[in-house]
């Protein structure tokens, strides 16, 4: 449709921005006060306390025995072979678990979004482990994987796969970390699946229809339309699942105590062991500060990465 114009084009009509209501701080206090109070009391203060303790040699019994030692605990970390292996285990744990949780939850979400029979039941089944206590899950897997009293070895034997393994699971230094990663993935991927399903529902049907009209197969539609539309969701899922794995403690502690011989030691279990079992609260705090720093760096890089990609789009 042609448009007749005279003279200079009229400036675009922009609706006047409504004046933002200015709220005074006292009025906001009831809304943010309780949460802020808890946040400061149970996160910020302990955080500052942990950083302070990491600079001391406190044994955890008596503040009269506390001495400021500067960065000694941090320099000692470099010479602690258990810390180095725990750091490596933590990084492997985070990297592998993050990829498996993201890929697994995306695959499950795509499958269950197809409105197949029983898909609602499977959603519930996959989400169920997330609501079970990590300690309970640790105990159950520990029992199931026991080489002498567990269920897995007799089961493998019954289906003719007994010869495929040596019957050792959590007591095999080469298998223990992969098993713990799989347990973590199994427990947590359901919640990320739900996040993906929510995002899938929000993708307009017209995009898929347009792709199908243009002759795209279902797989091409998923690869070229659906997955790119889920990019920001994927960023959030990877960030949350990575931080989730970084914090892993209960399942490792219950199932292996970091053993055998530190083969499954991660930063959280080694820090806990140092602070509460070996009475090195200062050193244990330094380990926890390192864990915190990794989490911050990880979150910062990840958010920057995905924000810049979103801006590129």
């Amino acid at each position: 449709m042609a448009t007749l114009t005279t003279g200079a084009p009229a400036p675009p009509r922009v609706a006047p921005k409504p004046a933002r209501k200015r709220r005074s701080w006292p009025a906001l206090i009831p809304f943010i006060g309780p949460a802020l109070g808890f946040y400061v009391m149970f996160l910020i203060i302990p955080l500052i306390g942990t950083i302070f303790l990491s600079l001391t040699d406190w044994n955890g019994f008596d503040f009269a025995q506390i001495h400021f030692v500067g960065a000694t605990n941090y320099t000692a970390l470099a010479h602690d072979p258990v810390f180095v292996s725990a750091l490596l285990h933590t990084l492997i744990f985070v990297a592998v678990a993050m990829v498996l949780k993201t890929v697994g939850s995306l695959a499950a979400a795509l499958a269950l979004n197809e409105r197949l029979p029983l898909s609602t039941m499977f959603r519930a089944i996959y989400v169920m482990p997330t609501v079970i206590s990590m300690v309970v899950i640790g105990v159950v897997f520990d029992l199931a994987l026991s080489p002498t009293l567990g269920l897995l070895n007799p089961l493998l034997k019954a289906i003719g796969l007994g010869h495929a393994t040596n019957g050792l699971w959590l007591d095999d230094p080469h298998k223990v970390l992969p098993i713990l990663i799989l347990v973590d993935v199994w427990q947590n991927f359901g919640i990320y699946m739900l996040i993906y399903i929510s995002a899938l529902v929000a993708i307009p049907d017209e995009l898929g229809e347009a792709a199908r009209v243009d002759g795209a197969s279902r797989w091409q539609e998923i690869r070229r339309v659906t997955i790119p539309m889920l990019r920001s969701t994927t960023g959030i899922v990877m960030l949350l699942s990575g931080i989730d794995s970084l914090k892993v403690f209960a399942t490792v502690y219950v199932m292996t105590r970091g053993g055998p011989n530190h083969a499954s030691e991660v930063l959280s279990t080694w820090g806990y062991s140092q602070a509460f079992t070996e009475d090195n609260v200062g050193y244990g705090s330094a380990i926890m500060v390192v864990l915190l720093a990794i989490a911050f760096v990880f979150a910062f890089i990840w958010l920057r990465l995905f924000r810049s990609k979103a801006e590129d789009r």
Partner: protein
Amino acid sequence: MRRMTRTGALLAAGTVVVMAMTACGAGTGGQSSGGSLTLLSEWTDGGSATSIQSTIDSWNSANPDHKMSQRSIGNEDFMTASRTAMSGSNPPDVLQFEGFSDTADYAKAGKLVDLTSWWNANKSRFALADSPGVTRACTYQGKVYCVPMSANAQSVLFYNAKLLSDNGIAPPKTYADVVAAGEKLKAKGIIPIALGDKDGWPGAQLWMTFVAQLCGTDTADNAVDRKGSQWTDQCFTQAATQVSDLVKKGFFPSGVVGDDYNAMVSLFESGKAAFISTGSWFIGSWQSAPPPFTVGAEYFPAVAGAAFPDDKVAYGGDVVGIPTGKNQAEAMKFLDYLTSLDQAKVWAKNYYFSAIKGAVAATGPSNIQSLYDQTAQAQDTLGSLDLQLPPAVGQDTLYNAFQSLLGGKSTPAQFTAALEKSANTAQGPSQP
């Protein structure tokens, strides 16, 4: 309207703050008023749990103004939980723990009441009162900070009498008998010795049994004290070799470092394993869950040529201390009550190896008398080494390096070298 909202908001905020302050105040007041006593222990099951409840019930009936309440935590997490409780500002009034390095740590921090006078006045009532094991468990810089509740033997070899009999094996009297029985059982597909070392201490205790026999109490204590002995000395490595040999013979279940103490007890009580080497506390579980077969028990037989065949790993086991706090006077009265012969008889009746003389003889089951007498009369008793050493050595390096040995990932010499290196770091070099 706006004005009212702001006022309301301020009132709400004030209410929240006041409520929070009131809640805090109420919590603190609730803990300090009322004059009640608290006990923290690891007496969670078996005869000890039944016994402490009985003692508390009778104490509370007699002392309604100073009622005792208890919190018990399972052995696996007790060490950590008790240290955390003692480091806080509100420790229990009475603490059951396992002594040794914990005693030193608590005493050094001024967290335990000096019981030297009480002990000197009352120690004639206790078995093993002057034994090295009990003395080292409770003494710090010449002062006594705890008293023994139990006279546990640590190096006991329990056996399934029926399983041995069914396979034509007589109860072993010597170490050679144990090895011969193990070979025969293994050939028949029966696990010779139940062991689960996930938590580190069950395996370490087996090594300590051989340490007592091969090194003797004095040498082992000198190694702990870093005075004239090192963990790399030949006898300590030889003790590790004894365990390593049992591993090579296939006497332990597969996955020995993946199962815990409960699993090893299950293996034994289900009849899958013929022997179990653990402490006399195992008997305490028989009161509530007796094994479905006759259990024999002897001290672990000495290896051939052992220089100290009669030295035993035995110590107070459960010790009781009084944390410094507001209820010390009443807590001391409870200690008197807890260690009285009348109460000890209740404990002995429940299969508890009471440290109070005469209790087990009076009410203890007949099948524990012989083992108890051997323990109570032992002279050279070695305190549990993992508890004697600083936690970084005894509960980190010892447990983990021993897991590596049991898993076949290291040699006896590497095990003792790791222990010596850790002790050197934590305690300094051994002095001549």
